[in-house]
């Protein structure tokens, strides 16, 4: 496909998107830029900063839980910390993570376009992320203290507590709006800006995943918008909506909350699956197995994922019929995900596998996500859910899918696309070492939670019975290993930007999608001329290694 393109020679006189001056110089040319690549980088910096804060809170939580009783903080602080950990990780890292960073940067390039459909709205999305983030941070600092309701803001505590819940709710509302605008932009972009010849079934699978994700962003997010807004209104004006003291129904809040928040997890996982679908063909040197199935399953996950929300509420007081219906639907939604895992595995079969760091993270994803997904299925079973709801088992489950899944997907994307974005090479060996610290640390941190959750350790509990101490200790040590891995990984990547070896190699790893045909780093308008596409995105012939030149910097 690379050779099928119309002239994309860079005559060398066009500077990369990192260097052009745009409107004014320096900072202003970035924060007022409507270039999707610059916006992607700004999202990268912002989300990674928020990730660091979220990790810090997680680290502190694990320190507290190292021993029963008080270790480093009091219970109120602990409650606020797990609330903030959730709010920051979910709304400021994982949800924007892949779509807003890599989607923004690469979606137009992958479909042969010069930018997204609405570049100025794109910039607004980023500004709203920053605004929402600032509001969340402010809620920590203002008197009243940070919210202590858990990121789920359940009624009635969320209308009773005196902490800065309203500000946190409004922050989430603003962040939701940011997400909605990204969704609108991406749906329109995929429909309207594909290059000539790029039919729907020639699109890269990452694009399919972004498209499915964008639909969920558009349709599901408004529900949480209105729900959180109503809780804030209830706090401010004493309007009777959810508060049982005024006749409201707390379970109804949970319904409305999860009608968004369950599809939200598919916003998180679909792009990560898309990354895996990109990385595996390249480093197995084989075309993806079952392209259409993966494309359709992305849409199926978006649709079915919107129908299962109440499996978060099996112990809340739902009717038997409700429980039965949602349990059944939950089993169905596992099918398209399983299809993807089968297809990735089949792609590896008889492939010429290179264990590039991106590939390691992609393989790690498959392993960790499978555990997470299976344990999700376990909980779709009503009788099991009664046992495991609100225990550490759940905490382990969702960290396996969100962190082992999406998190590792983000790490894979970072290693796959970093040199293309910055024109600098990172150290491959250091990257691989960081992977092993992360993979091992992750499992040591979270697997014990499955066991102790099953044995009865509740979640969000500040204190615990002595019989759980060993598990908690192990878990905390795991967190230290994991964080070591994070430090190595980010040090490696950031050092590369500052002092890494420069590369202008267009096709570093032998990929067949359009980003590997443009300059490294890309120029302002990506393409000198919009290409005409004639081939599919993963057409490797006989495991050929074309155009591959990987240089190591020791």
């Amino acid at each position, binding site marked *: 496909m690379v050779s099928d393109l119309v002239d994309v020679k860079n005559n060398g006189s066009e500077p990369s998107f990192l260097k052009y001056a745009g409107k004014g110089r320096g900072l202003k040319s970035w924060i007022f830029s409507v270039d999707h690549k610059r916006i992607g980088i700004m999202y990268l910096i912002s989300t990674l900063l928020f990730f660091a804060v979220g990790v810090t809170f997680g680290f502190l939580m694990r320190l507290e839980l190292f021993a029963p009783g008080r270790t480093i903080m009091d219970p109120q602080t602990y409650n606020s910390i797990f609330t903030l950990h959730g709010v920051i990780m979910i709304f400021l890292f994982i949800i924007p993570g892949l779509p807003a960073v890599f989607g923004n940067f690469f979606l137009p390039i992958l479909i042969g376009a010069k930018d997204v459909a609405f570049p100025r709205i794109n910039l607004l999305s980023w500004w709203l992320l920053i605004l929402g983030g600032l509001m969340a941070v402010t809620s920590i600092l203002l008197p009243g203290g940070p919210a202590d309701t858990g990121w789920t803001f359940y009624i009635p505590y969320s209308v009773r507590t005196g902490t800065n819940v309203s500000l946190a709710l409004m922050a989430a509302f603003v962040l939701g709006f940011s997400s909605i605008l990204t969704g609108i932009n991406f749906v329109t972009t995929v429909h309207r800006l594909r290059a000539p010849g790029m039919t729907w079934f020639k699109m890269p699978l990452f694009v399919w995943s972004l498209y499915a994700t964008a639909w969920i962003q558009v349709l599901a997010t408004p529900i949480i918008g209105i729900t959180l807004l109503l809780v804030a209104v209830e706090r401010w004006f004493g309007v009777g909506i959810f508060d049982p003291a005024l006749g409201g129904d707390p379970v109804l809040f949970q319904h409305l909350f999860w009608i968004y928040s369950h599809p939200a997890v598919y916003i998180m996982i679909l792009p990560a699956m898309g990354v895996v679908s990109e990385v595996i063909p390249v480093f197995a040197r084989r075309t993806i197995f079952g392209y259409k199935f993966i494309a359709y399953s992305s849409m199926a996950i978006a649709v079915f994922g*919107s129908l299962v929300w109440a499996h978060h509420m099996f112990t809340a007081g739902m009717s038997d019929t*409700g429980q039965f219906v949602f349990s059944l639907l939950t089993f169905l939604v596992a099918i398209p995900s399983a299809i993807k895992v089968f297809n990735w595995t089949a792609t590896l079969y008889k492939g010429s596998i290179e264990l590039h760091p991106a590939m390691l993270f992609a393989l790690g994803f498959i392993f960790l996500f499978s555990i997470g997904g299976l344990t999700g299925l376990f909980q779709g079973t009503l009788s099991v859910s009664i046992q495991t709801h609100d225990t550490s088992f759940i905490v382990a489950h969702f960290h396996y899918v969100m962190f082992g899944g999406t998190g590792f997907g983000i790490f894979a994307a970072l290693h796959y696309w970093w040199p293309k974005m910055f024109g600098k090479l990172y150290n491959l060996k250091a990257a691989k070492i960081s992977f092993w610290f992360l993979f091992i640390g992750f499992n040591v941190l979270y697997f014990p939670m499955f066991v102790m959750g099953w044995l009865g350790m509740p979640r969000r509990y500040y204190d615990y019975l002595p019989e759980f101490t060993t598990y908690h200790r192990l878990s905390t040590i795991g967190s230290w290993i994991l964080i070591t891995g994070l430090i190595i990984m980010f040090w490696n990547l950031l050092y590369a930007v500052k002092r890494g070896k420069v590369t202008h190699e267009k096709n570093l790893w032998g990929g067949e999608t359009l980003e590997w045909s443009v300059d490294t780093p890309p120029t302002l308008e990506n393409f000198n001329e919009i290409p005409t596409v004639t081939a599919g995105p993963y057409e490797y012939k006989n495991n050929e290694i074309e155009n591959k030149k990987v240089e190591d910097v020791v």
Partner: protein
Amino acid sequence: MIEKNQMSEEHSHSYGIYILVWLGLMTLTAVTVAVAGINFGALTVATALLVASIKSFLVLKIFMHLNVEQKVFKIFVGAALFFIIVSFVLLFADYSFL
């Protein structure tokens, strides 16, 4: 690449159809108010919602030009309605069987 309106070029513009639809909408409003006075129990609600749906359908199709837009717009509206209706039905799966 300049793509112009690409929609209204295919049909002639006239005030008439819109005024007709407006008359229809006003009539339907009168109907729904009249019916509301009669107590059919649950049927009253159903009728009110049915009339509201018809009015909305007219606004969507004619005022909002869904009838002359590309097919993809209709699919979009279908997707949004699907999401709303299915969520509603599933929500009531919990409430209607206590």
